[in-house]
């Protein structure tokens, strides 16, 4: 069973699925939807094979393949998953069918839409499983294009500006990364290779490491996004169609954090260690700034976008504090944010379909006309603001705990972000769902339809499940997380600030 190359099949199945979609005539929108749904569902089911065959006990890469691609230049096709990428792959395959469901109302140019959506899935999955820097870069850029088109063609009014901004921001970042990759490639002492695992051992001076780290960091920081490189996100989120927002928030943003964990830290551990204060400062600024700005947004999608910035700040903070709690929490939080923010976008997308406005002020009292929608929204919002018992809390708590273990005072502004999260989410919730109905258009908003319930139910179940019993997730994350933490920490210089150290603050 495990001989099956599940991983590679899962990665390329959506791309193959575009051929299927290509065969369906353009006018048969219904068939297109069903086709896309079928492809994504099958992909998800196959990805369960990855989950089942995953060996919990090891931090090594598993289930991958390795074939030479362009041997002259040391380029190979190498894939594999570990505890970090496993969940990212699962998150992608899990959310994709739901995104297709969220795209049910796409009538205009449905065929290319679904083709791009499926291409996007392959691109994203490819990023998460590539263990060859060249391959990684190819997928990295490949995931950019379909998203750009999704925003630029199926977005809302200001979509071209948003798509362009998104594209240029990310492109500038990734070009710096390309330079860094090439530099690394040429400084590798052995026979030239892009193989990630071989490159890990490249001897580099600290100065070089620092530059290369910043090169990678530029790309990932834009994608995360860290303040002040974040302004593409609100625009892109606001203008993107629902499924685009979902994938953007849930998976695309994770590429940045994932890249930091997979590439930036292990490849340049000394530089990473040295630049921890910088990255942590940016992360914390992101937490507080993102949340504060979210409070005053008038546009619901913008608000959620800014909340993403705050959440991603938490993730980066956890990744860089250099403790296993922070790292595990950060990785789990990547999953959590994908679920809850994805669901928030789906829910608001559903609301948008009913009312065709994103302005918060246009709503009010919706809980009366659509109680189930309101209830589900509240549930997801609570997950997003870190209510204990739901998934967000587990990740946030671990991040804070990890931060506290290493950098005591940094935890205060980070935890302050939790208050702000409550403020912006509940205030927005109040303005949208509570209060009297002042606008007659809100009087007859249909409640969630069965399709939407089917789309949301799996997410809600997972949100509650991770909140109550995160152990299966943490168990699989921990070995890989530990490995990265070890790389980030110079064990000789910093003693393990283990739980139980009784030194007083």
């Amino acid at each position: 069973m495990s001989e099956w190359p599940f991983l590679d099949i899962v990665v390329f199945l959506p791309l193959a699925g575009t051929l299927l979609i290509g065969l369906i005539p353009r006018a048969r929108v219904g068939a297109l939807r069903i086709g896309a749904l079928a492809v994504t569902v099958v992909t998800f089911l196959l990805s369960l094979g990855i989950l089942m065959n995953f060996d919990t006990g090891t931090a090594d890469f598993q289930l991958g393949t390795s074939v030479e691609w362009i041997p002259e230049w040391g380029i190979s096709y190498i894939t594999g998953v570990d505890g970090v990428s496993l969940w990212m792959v699962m998150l992608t395959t899990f959310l994709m069918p739901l995104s297709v469901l969220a795209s049910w109302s796409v009538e205009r140019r449905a065929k290319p839409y679904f083709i791009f959506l499926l291409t996007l899935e392959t691109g994203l999955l490819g990023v998460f499983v590539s263990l060859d820097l060249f391959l990684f870069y190819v997928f990295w850029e490949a995931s950019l294009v379909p998203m750009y088109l999704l925003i630029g063609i199926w977005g809302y009014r200001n979509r071209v500006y948003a798509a362009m901004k998104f594209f240029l921001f990310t492109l500038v970042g990734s070009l710096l990364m390309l330079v860094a990759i090439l530099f690394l490639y040429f400084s590798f002492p052995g026979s030239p290779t892009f193989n990630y695992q071989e490159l890990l051992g490249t001897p580099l001076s600290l100065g070089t490491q620092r530059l290369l780290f910043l090169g990678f960091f530029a790309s990932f920081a834009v994608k995360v996004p860290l303040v002040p490189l974040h302004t593409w996100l609100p625009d892109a989120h606001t203008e993107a169609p629902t499924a685009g927002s979902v994938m953007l928030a849930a998976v695309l943003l994770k590429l940045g954090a994932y890249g930091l964990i997979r590439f930036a830290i292990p490849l340049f551990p000394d530089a990473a260690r040295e630049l921890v204060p910088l990255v942590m400062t940016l992360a914390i600024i992101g937490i507080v700034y993102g949340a504060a700005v979210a409070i005053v947004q008038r546009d619901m999608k913008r608000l959620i976008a800014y909340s993403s910035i705050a959440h991603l700040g938490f993730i980066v903070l956890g990744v860089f504090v250099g403790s296993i709690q922070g790292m595990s929490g950060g990785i789990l939080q990547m999953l959590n944010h994908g679920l809850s923010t994805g669901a928030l976008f789906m829910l608001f997308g559903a609301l948008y379909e009913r009312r065709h406005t994103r302005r918060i002020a246009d709503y009010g009292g919706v809980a009366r006309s659509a109680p189930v929608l309101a209830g589900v929204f509240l549930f997801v919002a609570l997950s997003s603001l870190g209510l204990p018992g739901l998934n967000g809390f587990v990740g946030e708590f671990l991040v804070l705990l990890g931060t506290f273990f290493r950098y005591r005072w940094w935890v205060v502004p980070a935890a302050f972000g939790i208050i702000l999260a409550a403020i912006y989410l509940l205030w927005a919730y109040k303005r949208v769902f509570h209060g009297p109905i002042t606008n007659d258009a809100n009087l007859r908003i249909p409640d969630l339809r069965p399709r939407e319930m089917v789309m949301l139910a799996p997410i809600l179940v997972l949100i509650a499940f991770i909140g109550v019993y995160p152990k299966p997730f943490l168990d699989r994350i921990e070995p890989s997380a530990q490995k990265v933490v070890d790389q980030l920490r110079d064990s000789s210089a910093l003693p393990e600030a283990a739980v139980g150290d009784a030194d007083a603050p």
Partner: protein
Amino acid sequence: MTTDAVLAPFIIGLPLAGAVILLLFGKRMGRVAGVIGSATVGVAFILGVISFFSLLSRPEEERAVSRHLFEWITAGSFQAGVDLLVDQLSIVMVLVVTGVGALIHVYSIGYMHGDERYPRFFAYLNLFVAFMLVLVLADNLLLLYVGWEGVGLCSYLLIGFWFERRAAANAAKKAFIVNRIGDFSFLLGILLLAFTVGSLTIGGVNSAAAGELTAGTATVAALLLFGGATGKSAQIPLYVWLPDAMEGPTPVSALIHAATMVTAGVYMVVRFSPVFEASGGTALAVVAWVGAITALWAALMACAEYDIKRVLAYSTISQLGYMFLAAGVGAYSAGMFHLVTHAFFKALMFLGAGAVMHALAGEVDMRKMGGLRKAMPVVGLTFLAGVLAISGVAPFAGFFSKDSILASAWFEDQYALWGIAVFTTLLTAFYMARLFFRVFEGDLKVPEGAHPHDAPRSMAAALVPLAVLAVIGGVINLPRLVTLEHFLEPVVGESHVPTGLTPWVLGGIALLVGIAGILIARAFYTTTAGATRRQRLQRLAPWFVTAVRNKFFVDRIYGRGIVLPGKALASFSSSVLDTKVIDGVVNGVAWLIGRGAEEGRHVQTGYVRNYAVITLLGVVVLVGILFLRIGVA
């Protein structure tokens, strides 16, 4: 496994299951929802009683059983499980929560009758009870935090139950956010303890507090935890949410904002008393003083309030202050005792107020009421029991509990605190009597169109038992007889009530002060002469009256001082930093490139000959470079 350990998960599970069932299928149930909701809590209460007796049946030192359910969060060396602890303290809380909770559920069947979201109400109530039980049964600070935030959530849901009303929606949001501010502090406390102690189990934390924890760490940890308590238990400076929370349905106010949730802070302080003790006095002093000042502060505001529910809300804040005062002077069992009796009489009064509102079509302004005792005798009588109990009139429940707090303060040599507490007793008796006289005594006065009627059966079914408990509740801690104090001793440590004449004298003073308060209120509010006396008194210090009527401007100060600047800063970030500065740079670069291209493209004149000249220039330069590079010959 022992009976109590086996039962513990079920005590939580029943209301939780009720909540889930009601949320999912409540819509189709109609009135049955109320019955299911009440039944789950009722059965949970019975299970609690069984557990209680099972605990009692064991020797005193074995009355704490912990049960590990499953691992929750594990990362590296950090572990937090879902563990339940049944001991003397938690079982008392379980009994209060489920007992009072069950009565209020029953009451709600009548009170919420006809509401369109009737099943939803019971779902939320059940969910609340479940979270509250998680809070009190948790054997682990992190799990306690789950309950802690969970009850906050339910409080949010229930305050905003009538979310169509703007005030209700605002109050709900305010409650949650203010609580979150407290929780921020609480969470930091948890992190600190997790770091220094390494374990978050109650036993682990408390034994570490007794042992290796330094005074400095303990002080910081205790104060951070207490910061959480000020939010949840509505103490200065975070009490502002509670009066607004009265926008919720009255049973909610009774259950959450009087009897149970708001006392969670007190429970937590008592639970982690070793941490507070370990700080060497500082933390406890802060707790005591915050409690005392809050008690006085809230009592003052209660005197000027006309909204009956808000009077009760301020009174709750004030009484919670008493409990913290008790905890602060080390009289944990006294605090717990007052917590229990307060749960009885305050729930009773809230329910009574609810019955009044129910009868008067939702009217809450006491100026529009009067003489209702004749119209609704059951309510009037039971309410009177509550008033007497809270005013500390012997032999009602409040007398005993309040007296033990006052005595503890006195014997801990905290005379200033004692003085404040006694004065507050006077105020308490005054404003409660004022409320009673205005609403129930005098000539019949009702808002137009209202037809006052006595409480329906389901409501009376809750009022009467609570009234009985308010009357006789004191017996659970009759000095040197059956004592709660003694029962709780293994958890909170011995309390030493001295013998001799002093306790009697102190008790007498408290009693006299309480009666005095009632008499003053009678002088002011029952006769027509009272009104003129009132005016004369108000003229003495008009600024004070204004200040009290405006709640000392606290809400306004918070609004102007924190919320507004915060919002302004956020707006600034959003509209200036983000759109002008950062996006300005981004768009500026784009503009610059565009502009440069716009200018630069004029190089393309379209004249072939122009291009040819440039080409020639290139050729000349290239040949020149070749000369320089390789030279000739």
